């Protein structure tokens, strides 16, 4: 189990969010509105041109600035 940044994950890989690396409340709110909060499992679907992840049953598109804030713990 290691902690890695979202953008280092492979397509299709799953992970659990452990940290959102910002103190900006507006950004935290936006991420929260999409269900991106610590403790939630996500799966990376695309990295290019921007990030698409799956949270629960929702697909969410994120700009690279936001994707860079997300750190997860992954199994392998």
């Amino acid at each position, binding site marked *: 189990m290691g902690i890695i940044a979202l953008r280092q994950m492979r397509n299709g890989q799953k992970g659990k969010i452990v940290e959102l690396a910002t103190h900006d409340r507006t950004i935290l709110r936006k*991420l*929260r509105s999409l*269900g991106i909060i610590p403790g939630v499992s996500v*799966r990376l*679907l695309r990295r290019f041109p921007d990030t698409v992840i799956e949270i629960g049953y929702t*697909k969410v598109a*994120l700009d*690279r*600035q936001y994707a860079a804030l997300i750190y997860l713990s992954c199994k392998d």
Partner: protein
Amino acid sequence: MHSIALIGNPNVGKSLLFYHLTGNYVTVANYPGTTVEITKGQVNLGGRNYVIYDTPGMYSFSPITEEEAVTRRLLWELAPDLVVHVTDAKNLPRMLPLTLELISAGFQVILVLNMMDEAEKAGVRINFTRLAERIGVPVVAAAFTQGRGVTALKREMIKLLAANKSQQFFILREHPLVAKAASFLQAQYPFSRQMVARLYLEEDQEIKKLVHQKESREVQEYLAGCLAKVKKQNDNELLLYRFRQAEMMLSGIFRTSTRHSKMGRLEALMLQPLGGFLLMVVVAYVGLYLLVGRFGAGYLVDLLEGVLLGEIVLPVFSAWLHRLISSPKTLDLLVGDFGIITLGLRYALGVILPIVSTYFFVFAWLEDSGYLPRLAFWANSWMRPLGLNGRAILPLTLGFGCGTMAVLVTRTLESTRERFIATFLLAVAVPCSAQLGLILALLSAEPVFLFLWLVMVGSIFFLSGKVLNSLLPGPRTPFFMELPPLRLPSLSAILQKTGARMRWYFREICPVFIGISVLLWFLQQTGLLQQISNFLAPLMALMGLPSQMGTVFLFGFLRRDYGAAGLWDLYQQGFLDGGQLLIAAVVLTLFLPCLAQLGIMMRERGLFFAMIIAGCALLVAIMAGFLLRLLFALAVI
């Protein structure tokens, strides 16, 4: 009268429920954020009438965009007697926090789990009875696309509206610091003190100002103390409190399957840079060129304006009027060159109606299929140099339908900066469907001209975006958006939506068209039209255009689509050669936005900024025309 509000995340089916309850269709789309304004309707429940509001999407009580702020203000100012929280059942863990917020704010709430059909297909199991017990409000399972759950919801609504408001009061646990801050508050607010305290601790500017007005200095000092404590602690905890609470409430009663939704091939194609581009070209070719340009502006206009109105209705009507009315001035006003009927109504019904409705039909199809959010994702990297993000795709694409409507939809953008850039681009370089349809039809005889027009308008679009991005202060806001599932749209929904948009459009434009006819008639009668035309003649000459074009541009300002129709007339009468036609088409596209759009720009952006944009549009248009003329001159040599 008692009132009801429909609240929920974007794209969960609020507007569809509104339709089921009131029989009134507002625009519903498979795109987050299509409802930008509050819609008011009436619903009859158990023999009594209630006012019901459909609201723009709202994620939480801490608004991020203007639409969310609009909804919170409605809750604050109208204090509805009943709030129906509509959610997407399969995404309940993400949406239940808002239910809890609504309850904690002191509202009487019904939780609707919509899209149960999709949830069941995905293997989600929910124990509704236990959920209702845990959160203390009624829970209704529904699938509004199939009409499922509407009757059950109505029953619950009647029950709650008849009950005494204070009877159903469920106390939720609050974060200790919020509870403490709430206990200090003295004044009365439309929201519960717990909610006011929480928003205060989140440093919500609107609420903070209000609390400072209403509370004594002593209370304010206590609150400041709480705020300092929150800041010392990890304030993320406060932000996530409701999420954790929702998680606890759902534990054991909300089960998901381990099955993954796979990304379909079509979807993967849409999101790739190259695939997305090819798909966009196909959509633009089929949707814009074939359907709007060839079918709408070509075939339908010929049929309606050329045959039906031009050969049958108008000659008969005109002959009938000539027998009835003897005053030449009145006759001129009705059926003269700029007559209300011969010009205003003919353009409105014969030219604009077929083109705009074809566009709205195509747009509705794109919206409901779920393509637009994917287009937004794809376009995000293209929008970056313009200081915009993928979100701007919705207003910009809608701008190809009606710029006036599109300026209204720029509200879905996050910052003032983006709203300004988008409004500017809409005013300068995005032709509305009527304009586009006619231009496509006019230029399609010469594919080279069509290409040149595209290059010219396209480069001005990108150039003005780039210039604005470097001139305006502030950063670009990063993109984030939910990608709703791809669906095959239902024809009846699309027709209803097209109809709703057309009704809006005609309510807006018919009076304008008649007004313009009267104005032009007046200008012609007084000789002012000739003077304006003379005044514009040197400008036209500068761009190598005949002087009659001055009138067309005047039309274009009064109503963009009207100007395009004028261009059509001039070309048909043989006043323009090929090169002039191209110059005229480019200049007219870039020219001042129409009067209606200018009005909305002033309302949304303020008089000052609207005037700046209009001035720039004028300048850019004339410069582009002049440049093209020089290019032509060079080409000839």
